[in-house]
């Protein structure tokens, strides 16, 4: 029973990190069909934002809370710049966007190396997040609970924004049928840009959360980007709820297999599971229903 609870919690915790990394990706991937390999570096930028804020403000508790909106803005601005300079030129070439943004990610990584050094830096967690919480005799680390709550909050906020706001309606319309949305008077250009701002901003938030997990280094993004993409693939392109289910499924699977084998074998087995899953549902858990010949 102990093992069960611990493993499920570890899985949910790992899943919440995946979810934070993948949420913005699912949004931008679904919106424009572009594959943003620099998303991982936006996560890294968010993490270094938290590091800089820590050094500026000093107080760990305050700086964490201040970092979240600032990292959102940093990630968002990076995303909009990328969208406006490169991605909008390569609309119908999704595979090429992957390589272009890989170039961007190389440059950003090297920039981080030159500015912050290759060695990892630590962002100490605030006092109110240190130590465990006791629930029903089980103890959970507060930092991991915080990340879980943050991931759920980010998802709920995004889902609500997509469902109830005018911008959300425009985004959904563009995803489902871009030409028709355009004809209906929606500026898809402006929608693209805003979507990219939000999606990339979420990467920044994910970066702040990751500082609670350990030291941050310029390679931070690379280690999360592949998993984040797998979440999007399993969840179904452009599907926010698919990303949620996929993130937690993969997190639990990873922690479960890891428990009886090793971390590296678990990674390989999870990959095999994903390929097997795509045999059953090549389009992911959910698909966008459109009238195109998908």
């Amino acid at each position: 029973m102990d093992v069960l609870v611990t493993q499920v919690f570890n899985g949910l915790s790992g899943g919440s990190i995946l979810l934070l990394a993948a949420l913005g990706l699912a949004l931008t991937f679904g919106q424009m069909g572009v594959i943003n390999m620099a998303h991982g570096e936006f996560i890294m930028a968010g993490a270094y934002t938290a590091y800089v804020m820590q050094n500026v403000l000093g107080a760990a508790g305050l700086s964490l809370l201040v970092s979240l909106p600032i990292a959102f803005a940093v990630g968002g601005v990076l995303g909009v710049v990328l969208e406006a300079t490169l991605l909008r030129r390569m609309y119908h070439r999704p595979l090429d966007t992957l390589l272009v943004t890989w170039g961007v990610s190389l440059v950003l990584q090297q920039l981080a190396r030159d500015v912050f050094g290759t060695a990892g830096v630590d962002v100490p967690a605030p006092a109110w997040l240190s130590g465990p919480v006791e629930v029903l005799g089980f103890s959970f680390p507060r930092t991991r609970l915080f990340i879980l709550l943050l991931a759920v909050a980010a998802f709920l906020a995004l889902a609500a924004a997509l469902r109830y706001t005018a911008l959300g309606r425009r985004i959904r319309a563009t995803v489902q049928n871009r030409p028709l949305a355009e004809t209906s008077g929606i500026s898809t250009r402006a929608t693209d840009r805003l979507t990219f701002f939000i999606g990339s901003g979420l990467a920044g938030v994910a970066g702040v959360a990751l500082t609670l997990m350990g030291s941050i280094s310029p390679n931070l993004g690379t280690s999360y980007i592949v998993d984040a993409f797998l979440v999007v693939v399993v969840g179904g392109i452009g599907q926010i709820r698919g990303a949620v289910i996929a993130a937690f499924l993969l997190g639990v699977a990873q922690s479960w297999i890891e428990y009886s084998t090793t971390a590296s074998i678990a990674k390989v087995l999870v990959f095999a599971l994903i390929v097997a899953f795509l045999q059953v549902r090549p389009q992911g858990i959910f698909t966008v229903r459109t009238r195109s010949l998908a």
Partner: protein
Amino acid sequence: MNRRWVLPAAFAVAAVLLFVVAPLALSPFRLDQLGRYLCFAIVAVGIGLAWGRGGMLTLGQGVFFGMGAYLMAMHLKLADAGPGGTPDFMALISSDGVPWWWEPFRSEIVTLLAILLLPAAVAAVLGLATFRRKVRGAYFAILSQALAAAFAILLVGNPTGTGGSTGLSGFRGFFGFALSDPANRLVLFCTAAGVLLLMLALVRQLMVSRYGELLVACRDAEERVRFLGYDPANVKTVAFVVAAFMAGIAGALFVPIVGIVSPNDVGIVPSIGMLIGVAIGGRSTLFGPALGAIAVAWAGSALSEQFPSGWTYVQGLLFMLVIAFLPGGLASLAWRRVRPTAPAPSAQPVPAPSGGS
């Protein structure tokens, strides 16, 4: 010049350059370096077929390259250790002796067969599993990338079997020949050059065959190929398998020439790095990928000797500029100059209405 003579002439020039000019003009050190670039060029020829002609963006060629490289490295380590012996690094960290899955590679023939067949077999299984279910475009790219990540993690996580993150190195002999002898190294270089020319000829034959037409057709309009009664999954798998086959051979040549293989040569970053030369040279041409790969590898060594961090910026900028503004690669510029009225060869797959990406 008659167009019929262009291709044989190009092959002849390449052969003279590689077999005569390079060994005479370059120092043994530079020749080794060029040999390493040739290995990447062999990988690039395969990527040119799968990506340029077949539209399959594979981000996992490092896996097949690494399989060939590690198989060769395992054999060289075992051969150095002598019959029944244990390789030095293994004896240092564990006393269990040689793992069972190393044992077959004591044999030269098993090793060579495995290098030729194993990467191709893995590619066949993965290709059929994905293409049959119409997993393509971005989905396929991401899956191949995840494969590279998983492979590198597996190598790092298994220090007793694969040397972990340091990899395998310190080889003394190569099928009975001392690797320290310059004459043997020259033979190695010529082998790599010969393999490269052979692979170019193979791809050339595939391109002009009926199969080559089908492959391009699958890239540009997969559904139409299906309606004509062909199975695009098989067509695409063949190209993917050939590309993996070439990467495996390149990896096997890489090991004796460079003297080390580690997860740093096979993970996500090197796998995507293998694409940049292909993109710059012209992904859908015959010679473009190989020339681009050699040029990029050469530029990489030259620049990182002078500016350690500069090369990463240059590589990143090359990715951005070439892909965004010159998708046909440098070859498309040359093409336009030669025949200004003719349309450039289609380097970019037309987006199918099925939205396969």
